[in-house]
């Protein structure tokens, strides 16, 4: 069986959950091998967890020489790894970096690319959700090694217990790949809440909060949910950009999405329309968000949300 390369998304060696989802999907295409950019200590430490989730091999690419540069060096290293392994596919997490590394690699090796897949079937047919979630498209790479970027939360994490054998891979990086320099990097502070794209429940606030997110956060914490926001709330400086849901923010597809004080513009829908259950609280019964909801409350979020929080807390005992 051919190898399938899975590019590991990690922060300082801590593997992020979407990578494990990729390892699950990779098994539909062949035998998963993880590709870890980092130090060999971090790589060896991560290999156990990567193996447990399905990676037979873990290629560790030492990044001392390249970690200060954006995207291009990783694409070069992957080109060399693809040449060595002739994989049945390469999977990336759909984020800024994953997509751009895949993009450069596609040109280098002459391979088809599919972005933002939400499913990968046996044989490599992928599913994407397009036009703000209004259409579902199934497509397939027809030439070259399929390069597929997959959105977080697209597959179950499964433990299968593969070997996770570490193999150091020495890549040769050209000088021209080392030109866009990462001058400074400030890690994002953790909110202590679940990650937006991994959460089973998301409570989001919009302009209708008037800048006071206390009610939104209160309900979110009672439900164990992540907190999101519309662009209007982000643009007003009420919450960080990392909270933004929609076309130019994150796409979420949780079990439950609660929109509070959000009108439901098409660009917002683009990021939440595929949620399993949608609930809205909005003062305006004409708000377009009500077209999407499974349950809606026409009312003031500043009174409905805190009362709902109390009721939830009471039920939980």
């Amino acid at each position, binding site marked *: 069986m051919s190898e399938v390369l899975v590019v590991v998304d990690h*922060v300082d060696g801590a593997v992020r959950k979407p990578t494990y989802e990729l390892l699950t999907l990779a098994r539909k295409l062949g035998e998963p091998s993880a590709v870890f950019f980092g130090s060999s200590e971090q790589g060896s430490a991560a290999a156990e967890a990567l193996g447990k989730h399905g990676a037979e091999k873990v290629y560790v690419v030492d990044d001392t020489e390249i970690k200060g540069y*954006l*995207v291009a060096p990783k694409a070069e290293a992957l080109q060399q790894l693809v040449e060595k392994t002739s994989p049945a596919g390469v999977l990336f997490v759909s*984020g*800024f*970096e994953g*997509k*751009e590394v895949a*993009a*450069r690699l*596609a*040109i*280098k090796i*002459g391979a*088809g690319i*599919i*972005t933002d897949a939400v499913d990968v079937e046996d044989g490599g*047919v992928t599913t994407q959700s397009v*036009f703000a*979630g209004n*259409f579902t*498209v*199934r*497509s397939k790479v*027809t030439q070259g090694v399929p390069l597929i970027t997959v959105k977080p939360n697209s597959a179950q994490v499964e433990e299968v217990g593969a070997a996770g054998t570490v193999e150091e891979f020495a890549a040769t990086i050209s000088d021209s790949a080392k*030109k*866009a*320099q*990462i*001058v400074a*990097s*400030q890690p*994002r502070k953790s909110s202590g809440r679940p990650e937006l794209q991994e959460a089973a*429940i998301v409570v989001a606030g919009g302009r209708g909060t008037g800048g006071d997110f206390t009610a939104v956060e209160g309900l979110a914490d009672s*439900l164990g949910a992540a907190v999101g926001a519309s662009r209007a709330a982000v643009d007003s400086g009420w919450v960080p*950009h*990392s909270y933004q849901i929609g*076309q*130019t923010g994150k796409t979420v597809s949780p079990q*439950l999405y609660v929109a509070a004080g959000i009108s439901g513009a*098409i660009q917002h829908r683009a990021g939440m329309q595929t949620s399993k259950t*949608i*609930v809205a*609280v909005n003062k305006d*019964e004409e708000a377009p968000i*009500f077209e*999407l*909801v*499974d*349950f*809606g*409350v*026409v*009312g*003031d979020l500043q009174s*409905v949300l805190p*009362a709902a929080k109390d*009721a*939830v807390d009471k*039920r939980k005992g």
Partner: protein
Amino acid sequence: MNIVVCVKYVPDATADRRFESDNTVDRVGVDGLLSELDEYAVEQALQIKEKADGDVTVTALCIGPEKAVDAVRKALQMGADQGVLVTDEAIAGSDYLATSLVLAKAVEKVGVPDLVMCGMSSTDGAGAVLPAMLAERLDLPQVTLASVVETQGDQVRVKRDGDTATEVIGGTMPLVLSVTDQTGEARYPSFKGIMAAKKKPLETYSLADLGVDAGQVGIGAAYSAVEDTAERPPRSAGEVVKDEDGSGAGALTDFLVSKKFI
């Protein structure tokens, strides 16, 4: 300094976007416009021009059907100096690889650029991969997804709000620069701008003008194929209650309990 801004003509997101029978995006039957996310790139290009000491030429470049000239025109009305539309029947249905090839050839034909600027993503395909591909094709560094752009001489510094960190990225021109919708509102064309745009140079290139073989582009040359497209069934509107005398929260909680969220 030469700045080329890549602008895409896209179906209006607020219209009923759809596919053709061959599963390509309907770019003719649905009203189109300059992709809103590319307006931010035009805006940043104009700000760089306004701040620069020397002469700066901003060229708006678009690949698309004939109607796509509207996108170029809008960029000219905003303040770009000249426009180029690459249009050719053979391009229809091109994938990212082909589009990036044609864009790269067109950039080279416009002249040696100092900056090739792009939006963060198109609003139709939304792949957000073209800027990186263009950088690869042109063998240029990429400084992408900037939320704040600063230039000084040939130095570029941007802020990039990534998934797990906020970074400062630096590079030396020439390079490919893409910007997000966090860079600040794009200007509206003024009446003066609209009048002036009518006299600005606007060229149309075919594939032959760029020396690209028609066999390298279009649906036949694509590296991926769409198997099928399906409209998502509209969500059936659920129950909506009015919050009278504080009843809304109880009803909401009952719903959450019935769905086992609590």
